[in-house]
């Protein structure tokens, strides 16, 4: 028995030693691989967003571009100031030179010799001013003479007063020019008749003969007014061609669209206290390819534009162009203008009625705003929305060293009344297309528009699930990609038959995008 046990023990030991000898490689840690690798089999919900139309069309700093009515119906509103002029740009008081006075020597000899004069003051043709309150005004006097003896000369302007005191100038330089600045004075042009200004010379100590004389020239310069009262006269206003920038068509390059009820609203804001006639003859545009549209005849005239009767107030006036009074408006919108121009003419006191009691203050402003109103009611066929975003594939995919495939899954619910076709182009830094999401046009992701009711309002969303797989070869093509250009074509429901659809504020495209990446990457686990 003892021999048997000994033999059994030996067998067990040999058996064990044999096994350990055969499997020692499992414990030879010098053979441990030092690389660090992480397999990747990721499914990640990457994007989940719900885009309403204002998200798609508007820039984020221009929320005022949309208007929503009580039913949620959307209108695109683009406005800009077409024209804006201050009083100093329209009513300019030119320098006034009085008719020089030539006085004989014996006429002014003696003391306290007073000579009254009068000048019919008018800065404008046909103006009959009552008064001008100045911010500042300069009076310049030039004296020349051949008198034997000169004395003192004072010039007084009884109509130019400040706090009841008339303006006067003591001319010390009797053989030259003297200037004096008057601030806060008001010039009375009405007491002695329209546009009439009285002034007087007072000579003291002058001595001369009839053969001798004094020549005096007076100029009123740098008339910075605060208020002008009276009839200012008839004038044309220089309205240079200006443009209004609108960006609804910024991303739109191709295709056709039709707005059923476009409108253009003019708003005139006027704080000039006088009649102004505004005339808009033509309108035209320039698109994003710098092509000009035809000229469209507006034929608009407003005479007069509303104006305030109380100084400091302003009056507004509006004119609306729509399909009922502007047959050109749909055609014009179809030209997809980037800039809108118009030919305009303005007139002050167009009826030349001298009984008009005008006023102008230095802050008076005339503004013309041009507003495009595009109710989103119509149809569209393949207008293309494009946008570009950075996509540094070299950086992104260098994180994954060995990609088997990348799968993109889209789950899109379209609640808008348009079919949407989506494509993306991957371009390098030179703009050269390296690859596209789809090779053939028929492969583009097509999401049918939501189901609409008889009024063109979406009542049910349409769902589309798509999957795009990029294998290793296609991914290699993307290594030099720097940007991706997204292209979306839209097409409204039943556009062939002219069906009109409406867009509401809550119409949305719900987009979910998931990404499934399979591969592996070098990974430094010591960092974790």
């Amino acid at each position, binding site marked *: 028995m003892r021999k048997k046990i000994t033999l059994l023990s030996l067998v067990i030991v040999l058996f064990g030693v044999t096994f350990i000898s055969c499997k020692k490689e499992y414990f030879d840690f010098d*053979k441990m*691989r030092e690389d660090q690798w992480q397999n*990747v089999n*990721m499914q990640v919900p990457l994007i989940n967003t719900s885009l309403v139309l204002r998200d798609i069309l508007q820039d984020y700093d221009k929320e005022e571009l949309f208007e929503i009515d009580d039913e949620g119906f959307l209108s695109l509103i683009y406005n800009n100031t077409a024209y804006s002029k201050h009083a100093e740009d329209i009513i300019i008081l030119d320098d006034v030179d009085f008719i020089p006075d030539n006085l004989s020597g014996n006429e002014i000899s003696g003391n306290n010799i007073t000579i009254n004069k009068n000048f019919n003051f008018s800065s404008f043709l046909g103006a009959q001013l009552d008064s001008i309150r100045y911010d500042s005004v300069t009076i310049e006097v030039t004296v020349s003479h051949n008198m034997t003896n000169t004395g003192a000369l004072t010039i007084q302007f009884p109509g130019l007063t400040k706090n009841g005191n008339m303006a006067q100038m003591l001319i010390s330089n009797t053989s030259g020019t003297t200037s004096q600045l008057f601030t806060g004075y008001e010039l009375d042009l009405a007491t002695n008749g329209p546009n009439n200004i009285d002034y007087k010379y007072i000579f003291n100590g002058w001595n001369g003969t009839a053969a001798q004389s004094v020549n005096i020239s007076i100029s009123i310069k740098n008339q910075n007014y605060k208020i002008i009262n009276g009839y200012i006269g008839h004038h044309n206003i220089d309205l240079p061609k200006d443009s209004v920038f609108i960006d609804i068509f910024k991303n739109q390059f191709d295709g056709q669209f039709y707005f059923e009820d476009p409108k253009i609203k003019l708003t005139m804001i006027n704080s000039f206290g006088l009649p102004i006639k505004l005339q808009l003859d033509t309108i035209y545009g320039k698109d994003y390819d710098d092509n000009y549209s035809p000229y469209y005849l507006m034929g608009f005239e407003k005479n007069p534009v509303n104006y305030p009767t109380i100084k400091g107030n302003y009056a507004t006036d509006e004119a609306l162009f729509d399909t009922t009074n502007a047959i050109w408006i749909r055609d014009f919108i179809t030209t997809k203008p980037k800039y809108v121009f118009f030919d305009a003419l303005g007139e002050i006191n167009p009826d030349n009625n001298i009984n008009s009691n005008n006023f102008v203050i230095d802050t008076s402003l005339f503004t013309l705003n041009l507003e495009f109103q595009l109710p989103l009611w119509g149809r569209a066929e393949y207008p293309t929305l494009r946008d570009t975003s950075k996509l540094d594939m070299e950086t992104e995919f260098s994180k994954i060293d060995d990609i088997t495939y990348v799968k993109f899954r889209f789950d899109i619910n379209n609640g808008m009344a348009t079919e949407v076709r989506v494509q993306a182009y991957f371009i390098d830094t030179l703009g050269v297309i390296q690859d596209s999401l789809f090779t053939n046009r028929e492969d583009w992701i097509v999401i049918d528009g939501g189901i609409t009711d008889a009024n063109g309002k979406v009542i049910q969303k349409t769902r589309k699930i798509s999957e795009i797989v990029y294998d290793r070869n296609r991914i290699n093509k993307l290594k030099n990609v720097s940007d991706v250009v997204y292209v979306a074509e839209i097409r409204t429901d039943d556009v062939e038959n002219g069906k009109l659809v409406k867009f509401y504020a809550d119409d949305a495209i719900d987009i979910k995008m998931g990404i499934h990446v399979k591969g592996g990457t070098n990974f430094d686990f010591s960092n974790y």
Partner: protein
Amino acid sequence: MFAQQSNTLFYMHRLPQATLVNPAIQPDCKLTISGLIVPVSGQLFPAMHTNMGSTGFAYKDMVQYNSVIDSLMIPTSKGFDYEHLLSKLKNVNFITFEEHLDIISVGYKWKNDWRFTFNIASKTELRLDFTKDLITLISEGGNGGSFSGETANLSMGITATQWHEIGLGASKKLNDKLTIGATAKLLFGQSNVWSKKTNLDWSTNATDYTYNINADMEVYTSQAFYQVDKYYYDYNADSMVFEGTNLNPSTKQVLFSFKNPGAAINLGAEYKLNDKINLYASVIDLGFIKWNNNVNVFTVNGKYKFDGYDPQPYATQNDSVINAHNDALVDEAIEIFLPERQIDSYFSYLTPKLNIGGTYQFNEKINAGILYRGDIYHRKLHSSLTLSGNANLTKWFSAYLSYSMMYNSYTNIGVGLVAKGSIFQFFVVTDNIFGFFMPQSTRVLNARLGINLMFGCKKSNSQTLVGNSEL
């Protein structure tokens, strides 16, 4: 199939340690003594039990050898065969470690039909559980590409307990057929980490890859080393931060803490059906510990859905808008998964073990045994089955050979050897002898060894296995 203690030990009735798995067993010696504090023998071969097991994988499944490139590969190595590893895993897998050390164990037989025992032991048990889905997730970079349209069970739990126990037992032969026994134990918990609830599942929508994560987790801790003062989510480091105080307990405070009391009982019976067949049954470790010292209970309960980023805030290119959006995303997740904390005392429970078996006597020296064993935890019965041949070959030497199905492994050959000289009884037993020769392939490796001092043993020459035997 799963088990913890050595199953081969169950029919090694010459050993006083057999009472640890069935308190009805009565070795014939009048007095038996063993343990760490027994002079000389206690230190040379302390009576201890060590067990390591894995239901899911063996060493070679995790540390793979590629003969083509003559290299070892671990899961972070390129080319590691995850498919092989995953093929070995069950839906839920366990890794266990046990260390039982007998400080002192005394048995005393009185009037032929009574036997009393007293023992003090220190025990450490650790059990980690994890799911196959969790390993799959890790293997794929943590994003569940394989779970499209499915729900992944990512539960992971831990139960780790260190405690001391003082046991007082008695067994009695009620008649010629039936012997019963019981051991009452006072328990003194030292440290515990217990994940009572570990429910964490993750589903990925097959269409849009939306994540849905549900969590219902409870973790209980009691230990003497570190006190959590506060915890919070660190946005900059993107991680949870626990701040606290190192308690720096002394060895005495760690080993002799009585702040966490508990109690347990072992029950056993032996029934002699006839001259050939004996039946055995026992229930071990029915008990609990109440944890009072430095208790923390962390609970997480919530649902989280992530269905993608909204790009519109990013399109603004406004840093404040983008940061606010990102913070809101993080806050949403943190709000759900930030643990809530309680500091109430709690009860944890030992792992009850059920043993049912029987032996068939071929002759005076040899019998064959069968043992079913079930461990109850996670509200499930984890079973193992052992067949054994038990032989008292001489009056001083016994040998035992077993075959066990355990840890989802079916190649476990166990061996037990008992040898006696003078008052010294040396023993060694394992359920998987191959584990020592082929550690790379084994899932279970356990051993119990020690030296018992035996006094007052019968002087007969009997080598029978029928009934209790002396050696």
